[in-house]
């Protein structure tokens, strides 16, 4: 579900390879992100350009993973959100806590 795309000095770029981010895969997503962090000990930037929609369950898993990384002085960054997902982050005001970028180059 989550594959490494590029490793930078202090951030790991990963791709989220699912179209529907939902109740079905939220727990697995959180587990994979935390495992990656434990292995690489870096902030993680997630390219979400392949994701068509996110439901509340997956959103909860994203927030849970985010809180885990923040507690360990790292971050979960988001890249390439579709218009609907951008709207969902605005609706839930999570755009005030997640750092959201258009491209990986904007981070590095």
């Amino acid at each position, binding site marked *: 579900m989550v594959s490494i795309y590029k490793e930078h000095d202090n951030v790991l770029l990963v791709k989220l390879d699912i179209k529907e981010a*939902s109740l079905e895969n939220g727990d697995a997503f959180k587990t994979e992100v935390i495992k990656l962090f434990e292995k690489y000990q870096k902030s993680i930037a997630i390219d979400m350009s392949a994701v068509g929609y996110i439901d509340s369950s997956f959103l909860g898993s994203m927030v849970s993973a985010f809180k885990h990384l923040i*507690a360990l002085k790292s971050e979960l960054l988001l890249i390439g959100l579709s218009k609907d997902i951008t709207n969902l982050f605005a609706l839930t*005001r999570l755009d005030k*806590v997640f750092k959201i970028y258009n491209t990986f180059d904007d981070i590095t």
Partner: protein
Amino acid sequence: MAQPVSKQFILPNTRQSIKSSVQELLDFVINHLPAHIDKEVISFKIEVILIELLTNGIKHAGTKETLLDITIDDKSINIDKSDFGNRYQPGNITSLLIHDSGYKELLTKDGLHSMYAVVENDTRIKFVCEEEGDDDTVIDVSNLMEHFGLLIITKASDNFTYTYNIELGLNTFSVLLVLDGSPF
């Protein structure tokens, strides 16, 4: 004024069917919207509301099917999602129905939102969301809530209620969207 359009859908209550059910319902709504409505804005709201209503049913109802009634007229869209399954219990919501109308109880609170349940009568509760802080407020991330279903429906709609009919054992979540063309 055009006549209201109504349709009842009987949908499977499974994770695998959510996407196709949402698309069927969304197509129905879009095809019956008044001409003056911005379809892009309303599509986003309707889609997230439908996804969360159906997901909520899968999580809590414990039934094989769920009923969804949609009514569209010139000024509003009403969506009623009903099932004869388990009472909706998160936050002991149904226990609030013993209180007088107007009673308001905090369900969840973090640095971004407070969610309340407000008793409307002896069978119905209205969900209300209030935003916390402003653009300069530092958010305590460790305190962020991780459950967004009720919040999304409440914020995407103009009115969101839960009714429990104790005689029938019927749960009904009702959503109203006012068609005034305003963004969220």
